[in-house]
């Protein structure tokens, strides 16, 4: 995992060349009727070329807004990106780019797949038209060549008889097929970064597996980097190298996928893992993180997770924790447990978590 860059000291300096995407101190706010909402409140992470990263969080955690900010697809009047935020892509800072240059990157070097395949395709144009359009926008090729590329892309995503399907309209296809078309469209110009925002949430479980398989194989084949946004920990486990966990607009934990999912170090992540229902936990109460996600207008004054945290103490209500280093690798967690003040509480907390996770297993042995 890349070192977390102390965003403040590296302003204006491009990251090393093997880092494709470097998000520094991203802060995006929305002006709404009742005030200003900080949807993304100072997050930083980076992604190396050809690697995969998963952004995990509940609805409202700010993960989609992160992606939209990177792609600069937000409407700027209601949305506002803080001047101190920087996003470096392929050696260039893109938040400050003039919009027409950004358009040359979008769909070309950086592509995005959205959550709702049923409404994300234009209903009045054929599938082939929409793919070819993207190709023609970014590459100077003839109509025929673009059309062929469309057929080719459809084939790459596993659509049978692509040369026939290419003249179909979106409403003539199922949800899974449409999502494949979206992926085909995103890949048509061979992007260096593919952002997938909850690509399977709206699909049936069996189709989900297929689409994820597809994404994985494509990513491996083309060598593009993949940023996968999801709320589903299971998906993340299968697909990515590194994980960033978001809560209420902040990064609360990141590390490699093995580290974060097997040995989480932030109470929120722990809670998430504990609440996964599993076959082994039969008969017990479903455990959930108590409380609800805070309203953005009424964020807790210090640690945002404190009201729901089983390990919180009065320090957590006074001082907001920083993203503290955990151990010696590139792991970080936003929790006081990893500071000297929390040192004595760390072990017991981890023990509690371990017990909660394995409670089901004890149970099943009891049942016999």
């Amino acid at each position, binding site marked *: 995992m890349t070192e977390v860059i102390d965003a403040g000291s590296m302003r204006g300096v491009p990251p090393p060349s093997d880092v494709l995407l470097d998000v520094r101190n991203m802060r995006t706010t929305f002006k709404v009727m009742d005030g200003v909402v900080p949807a993304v409140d100072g997050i930083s992470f980076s992604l190396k070329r050809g690697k995969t990263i998963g952004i995990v969080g509940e609805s409202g955690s700010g993960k989609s807004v992160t992606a939209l900010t990177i792609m600069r697809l937000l409407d700027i009047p209601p949305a506002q990106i803080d001047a101190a935020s920087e996003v470096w892509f392929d050696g260039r800072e893109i938040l400050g780019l003039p919009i027409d240059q950004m358009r040359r*990157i979008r*769909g070309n070097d950086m*592509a995005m797949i*959205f959550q709702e395949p049923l409404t*994300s*395709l*234009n*209903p009045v144009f054929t599938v082939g038209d929409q793919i070819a359009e*993207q190709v023609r*926008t970014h590459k100077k090729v003839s109509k025929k060549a673009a059309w062929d590329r469309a057929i080719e892309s459809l084939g790459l995503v596993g659509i049978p008889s692509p040369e026939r399907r290419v003249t179909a309209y979106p409403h003539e296809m199922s949800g899974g097929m449409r999502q494949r078309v979206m992926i085909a469209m995103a890949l048509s110009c061979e992007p260096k970064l593919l952002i997938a925002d909850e690509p399977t949430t709206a699909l049936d479980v069996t189709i989900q597996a297929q689409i994820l398989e597809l994404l994985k194989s494509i990513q491996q084949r083309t060598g593009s980097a993949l940023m996968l946004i999801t709320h589903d920990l299971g998906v993340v486990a299968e697909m990515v190298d590194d994980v960033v966990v978001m809560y209420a607009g902040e990064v609360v934990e990141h590390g490699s996928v093995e580290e974060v999912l097997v040995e989480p170090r932030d109470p929120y992540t722990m809670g998430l893992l504990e609440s996964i229902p599993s076959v082994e936990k039969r008969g017990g109460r479903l455990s959930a993180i108590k409380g609800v996600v805070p309203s953005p207008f009424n964020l807790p004054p210090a640690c945002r997770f404190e009201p729901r945290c089983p390990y919180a103490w009065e320090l957590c209500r006074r001082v907001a924790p920083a993203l503290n280093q955990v151990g010696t690798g590139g792991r970080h967690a936003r929790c006081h447990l990893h500071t000297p003040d929390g040192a004595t509480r760390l072990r017991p907390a981890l023990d509690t978590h371990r017990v909660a996770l394995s409670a089901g297993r004890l149970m099943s042995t009891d049942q016999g």
Partner: protein
Amino acid sequence: MAKYVARRLLQAIPVIIGISIVIYAILLSAPGGPLAKFANNPKVTNEQRAKFMAAWGLDQPIPVQYCRWMGFCDPNQPGVALLTKSGVPNFLPSGIGGGDNGMAHLSLGFSIDTGEDVGLLIGRAALPTLILAGTALIIWILLAVLLGVVAAVKRYSFFDQAATVFSYIGLAMPTFWLGIMLIILFGATLKWLPVSGMIDSRLSPPFGTGEYWAYFGKAPLTAMVDLLRHLILPVCTLVAVSIAGDSRFVRASMLEALGQDYVRTARAKGLSNRTVVFRHALRNALLPVVTNIALEIPFLFSGALVTESIFSWPGIGRLTLRTIQSFDYSVLMGILMIIAVLVVLANLLADVLYAVVDPRIKY
């Protein structure tokens, strides 16, 4: 699709027949009628009135009159006479011995006021109305779409707010009031534009006559300019209110399209703003607009009614008003039936157009 159209046309027939019955019944069942023009004239004797009624068949019961109007009853015989004198059913073509009256033979009868063939009468009034309504339709569509799209794209800008004010006021304004104000402003005060008729009688013969076309052939440019000058105010009056309403509709439709997911996808593809707005969003936004406009075409005719009256435009509108005042049943029935058919066709057109532009619709 062809089957759908055929089916709709067949379904329309009973509706149209139903409408004709209703209209006919209402027209004839109230007191008064074509005799009203003799009401205050003491020189017309009762005998003459009776002869008049008999000559026009107005003394027959209403169902009989209707039957004759439809062409199933022979008007030359009293009562319900389904067979002609030669024993052939009346609705068959006259060549075979059937009658020559009524809808079955495509005849609308004769005007009680002037005796002219109703079809010819209406036909003569049709061209001016077509010119007026046709020009109005084109301008209406172009301006409504243009205004609506620009207002949506430049949302909240000064243009948008001005357009919104304009639409609000336009929707609140009776069309004829606008016409009157325009006449006062451009006709009486500024004297820039003519305010009545289709042509300047000092320059050219009355419109539509043989002499007029001869004149047109000799001096086409002058004639066209004259015609256009006379068209301006009536067309403005006719379309102002419609544009006001429709531009808001276009704006709303456009805004809705711009908020759709596929627009976000289009932007994510890196397409230029112009492509996103005019190719992706507009195409979808126009779907409901197209049907809306098709459905509003019949309203052009009621608008023409008033406009033709204010500007003395010799079209169907003015004809209608005249015949309503004198209760000239034949002409009135003819006009109303034509309008009813047009309304039905306009509805059908709206549905067909919808299927044509939206690939999701299949009949």
